[in-house]
């Protein structure tokens, strides 16, 4: 038997169930008929629920590192990203918002 510790189930691809890793990184897609047992380990308010999922030994589990939502989130702007933006490139002009420019046009 194979045992996985995962977060809450969500709809996955093609009728499968998606369980995110308990640390929020990565996920597995499982079919209901693959799951031979499950037990809720932790369900405290404000914390990510933890489940133990039992699978038959040798189960073919599709593991993913980034879900679609996580992938999209990495390319979305965030407040922190905006805040650190001026320090991202060394050559942002300090006197205006031009990138890589420090010349007579923007900064006499």
């Amino acid at each position: 038997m194979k045992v996985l510790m995962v977060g809450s189930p969500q709809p996955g691809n093609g009728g499968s169930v998606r369980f995110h890793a308990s640390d929020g990184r990565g996920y597995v897609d499982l079919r209901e008929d693959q799951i031979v047992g499950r037990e809720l380990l932790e369900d405290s308010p404000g914390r990510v629920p933890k489940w133990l999922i039992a699978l038959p030994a040798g189960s073919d589990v599709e593991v993913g590192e980034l879900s679609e939502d996580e992938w999209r989130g990495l390319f979305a702007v965030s407040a922190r990203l905006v805040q650190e933006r001026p320090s991202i490139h060394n050559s942002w002009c300090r006197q205006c918002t031009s990138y890589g420019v420090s010349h007579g046009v923007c900064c006499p």
Partner: protein
Amino acid sequence: MQIGSVVAELLDRGILEAGECLSAGFSAEHLTGRNRLILIRTPTRTLSVKWHREPTAAAREVTALTVIGSCRPDFHVQSLVDHRADRVVLASSPGLRPVHERWRGSGPSRRRAHRLGRALASLHAVPPPEGTPWSRMPFDPSSAGEELIDASSGTREAVRRIQDDERVIDQVRELDVVLRSEGATFCHGDLRTHNVLGSSGADAALTLIDWETACAGPRSFDLGAGLAMFIEFALVAGKGAPDPVVLGAFLAGYADRAGGPVDLAVPLRCAGVRLLQTAVEYAAGTSEELEIVERFCRIGSMLLRRPGEGAVHLRLVA
């Protein structure tokens, strides 16, 4: 280094004419790091003035430009104006700007991406001259050590974050072996948005600059860096994942010019290593943990270890 003193010297040496300065734009692209680069945009030409830390690097750049210029690639090749031990002055057509500036409004276009793919394939058709150094991995996390002692805390943190994942170190080593088994082409070696210049005309050809890292190496090396360019731009812009149509156009441009389709697995892994390198570069000089660095690390690590998953996310496969 003051731009004024550089211009004065170029005027003294007759490299720049006084009349050109009246309407020129002076842009300091890099003033720190390995090399320093100033672009001078006059109405008739774009001059690139570059200082190399090592004279051998300047010589490599001049040699590469000479070889490429004789092979009529699908991009503009800068012409040599002046060469001293530590400095090279090159000229190209007017109105050139790094592509990330051109992309800032609506992002990279399909047409320009296709052109970049073709340009890269035409470079890879050039036989590497004898004695060209073999390519080096852009970032080797297993060897980053003593040189970090004087690095900023941001750099140390970024490298530590990458080194903590042993799977990454193993995969970089394995990728190095895979790359050495690919045939050698003439590679740019440091493809990034700073090093691809374009003008505003719809049919304007691209100009590739910064040839000191030109090397004999696998084409996956440059192709990965090309893919990483689009991913880096999308990450910094924060306007969504890279457009699969644009990525597809880049790869189609390459395949059209190279005369065959591109196997994506190795280039995607190379893109991953390149993004890890980019993470460390973005962390340089900072003392805090930047979110953008974390994002580069996550995507770089995923592409390196799981190129198939990366291809699905980038919608390069069905």
